[in-house]
């Protein structure tokens, strides 16, 4: 690209300096706040005041932090789900629907099975059932992708809308199994007490946060050390190499997508054993599934970094929620605007991590 007498080139870096790995996300966050600030200023809100309040409510107090950790718990799971699939170039963007199905499946287990199980087994069984139903929801797109090469992008997404209507049907449309039979108010039937976890003290953080973080650490380690982790990364980098080396691409693709679905389902299940205790349409309002994709992309599909970004995003959401209860309420959607903007900037910024910007003076040949 030429600008006047200067020539601007992007040259690939062989190695990126360590500080750039942190600088890109932090810089993106900063730029996103500026964009958000512009929109806030245009709508008659004070950008500095709003962001100060947002950070204060999301991170600065004990209550803020524990609320944030509670919100981060399912977000870590959907973030891991997206990261696990995206790093293999499998773009499962149906985490939202898989999470709903996880909620439905775990609530079913919590109502129907938990009563027959010994106390210590109830919660694990409920969580696992949620993970399985989440995986089941991605089965059709996964088989299509693995066997016939059909793009998983649109198919996984379309199922989000189906899942959304399914939850609405169970709670609002029918008086069936998942609906609380004791009241005419449309709400979910509460699961057995043995299948529920209580939060730490008076906070809104549940023990499931330990499972979520443990999963991140475990996945990080497993995908680095195991044969499976190696094979999937070869397949992602070069399908042909994987084929020549005799790896089973169909099986690997299928397993990656199913496990991604299971992680997203687990997010829904954690919501059930934790704060909700039932099929709760409230989950449909939060958008953890879509946010998980942003979290994963911002973390550059690194499982450990997913935990950090998920906590950061949960803080933005918690802070955003508290902005609505002020004299000049700021719509909570500012949090979504920030998420989208962060991701856009991070994608652009990634180029400057991978490439060096080189500006050279071009010799003008006079009189030629």
């Amino acid at each position: 690209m030429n600008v006047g007498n200067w020539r601007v080139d992007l040259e690939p870096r062989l190695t990126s300096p360590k500080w750039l790995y942190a600088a890109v996300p932090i810089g993106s966050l900063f730029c996103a706040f500026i964009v958000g600030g512009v929109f806030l200023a245009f709508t008659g809100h004070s950008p500095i005041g709003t962001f100060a309040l947002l950070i204060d409510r999301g991170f600065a107090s004990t209550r803020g932090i524990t609320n944030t950790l509670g919100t981060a718990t399912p977000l870590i799971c959907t973030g891991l789900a997206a990261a696990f699939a995206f790093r293999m170039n499998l773009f499962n963007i149906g985490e939202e629907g898989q999470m709903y199905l996880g909620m439905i499946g775990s609530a079913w287990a919590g109502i129907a099975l938990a009563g027959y199980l010994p106390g210590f087994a109830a919660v694990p069984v409920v969580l696992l059932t949620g993970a399985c139903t989440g995986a089941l929801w991605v089965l059709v797109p996964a088989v299509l992708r693995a066997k016939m090469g059909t793009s998983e992008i649109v198919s996984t997404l379309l199922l989000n809308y189906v899942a959304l209507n399914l939850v609405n049907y169970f709670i609002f449309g029918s008086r069936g199994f998942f609906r609380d039979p004791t009241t005419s108010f449309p709400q979910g039937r509460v699961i057995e007490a043995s299948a529920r976890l209580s939060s730490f003290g008076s906070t809104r953080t549940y023990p499931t946060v330990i499972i979520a973080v443990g999963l991140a650490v475990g996945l990080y380690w497993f995908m680095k050390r195991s044969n499976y982790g190696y094979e999937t990364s070869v397949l992602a980098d070069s399908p042909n190499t994987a084929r020549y080396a005799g790896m089973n691409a169909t099986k690997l693709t299928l397993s990656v997508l199913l496990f991604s679905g299971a992680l997203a389902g687990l997010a829904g299940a954690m919501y059930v054993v934790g704060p909700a205790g039932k099929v709760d349409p409230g989950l449909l309002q939060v958008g953890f599934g879509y946010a998980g994709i942003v979290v994963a992309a911002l973390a550059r599909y690194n499982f450990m970094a997913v935990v950090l970004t998920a906590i950061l995003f949960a803080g933005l959401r918690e802070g955003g929620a508290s902005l609505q209860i002020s004299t000049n309420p700021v719509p909570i959607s500012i949090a979504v605007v920030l998420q989208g903007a962060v991701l856009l900037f991070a994608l652009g910024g990634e180029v400057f991590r991978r490439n060096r910007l080189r500006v050279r003076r071009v010799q003008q040949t006079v009189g030629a």
Partner: protein
Amino acid sequence: MNANVWVLTFADAFSIATTLILATIGAILTERSGVINLGVEGILLMGAVTAFLVGDATGNVWLALLLPVAVGAAMALIHATLSITLRANQIVAGLALVIFGNGLSQFIGKPVEGKTRPVVITPIDLGPLTDLPIVGPIIFGHDPITYLTWVGAVVCSLYLNRTRPGLILRATGDAPATVDAQGVSVARVRFVHTIIGGALMGLAGGWFMLARGTAWSQAATTNGIGWIALALVVFASWRPLRAIAGAVLFGFTLQVPFTLQGQQINILPPEIVQMLPYLATLFVLVMLSTPRARKLLGAPKMLGQPFVRDER
């Protein structure tokens, strides 16, 4: 006879199809150049909220249609910069656009949430033609934009298949290196068509609000129409004229839940019926993925691949 509910449903299907055709053609132009823009849903939402806000502020229906075009082009410019100049992952960039558009349309639409739509695009009266039995309401009962869209699809098809720029466009999607060797800038072709595509998607969103919407409510506006349009691109095998047929078909599945509800036909609960358009789309995608169907499709060969001259 023209008040028959199924005639009206078909008329509505043709009407809804306008949004689908515009968005699909926008996506076809983008994808033919080799860029994949998944941000359709976000652009539709931004187009819709822009149309509403401009209509609310000015009361002018044409301004309310024009501004969404500019907004759509601007959003596509973001996508083009990220995916062409900065060579970012196009899939993730498109998703980011959806999330950004989703949040921003909610944010700037908050003050008018629940307000009824300020201006309306009215159907043009074609006199006796509109009164014809059955075809009257279905074919001759629409507004100017719908007719322009049909003409637009034909023009777009001619452009792709019968003009030199159209040939270059197709070549850019299939063999950018060849285009580059001819001395044509691949980046420019991709930029131009991504932005035109975005403008059409913006118009699709704006028109949908003014012609089909009632009140502004972000959650209930597009409801995944953008994703259906992306599936339609595959269904239409990247050809504009086939997009019309597909759009009417999908328009029908989008309209049927409302008809059934309005007629109190309760074969299935409404929540289940509302799954229909998405399940139908998925079903079509499954059908299209058989090896035999794939041969007939012909996706642009370098779809989603950034072009770097040195790397050849």
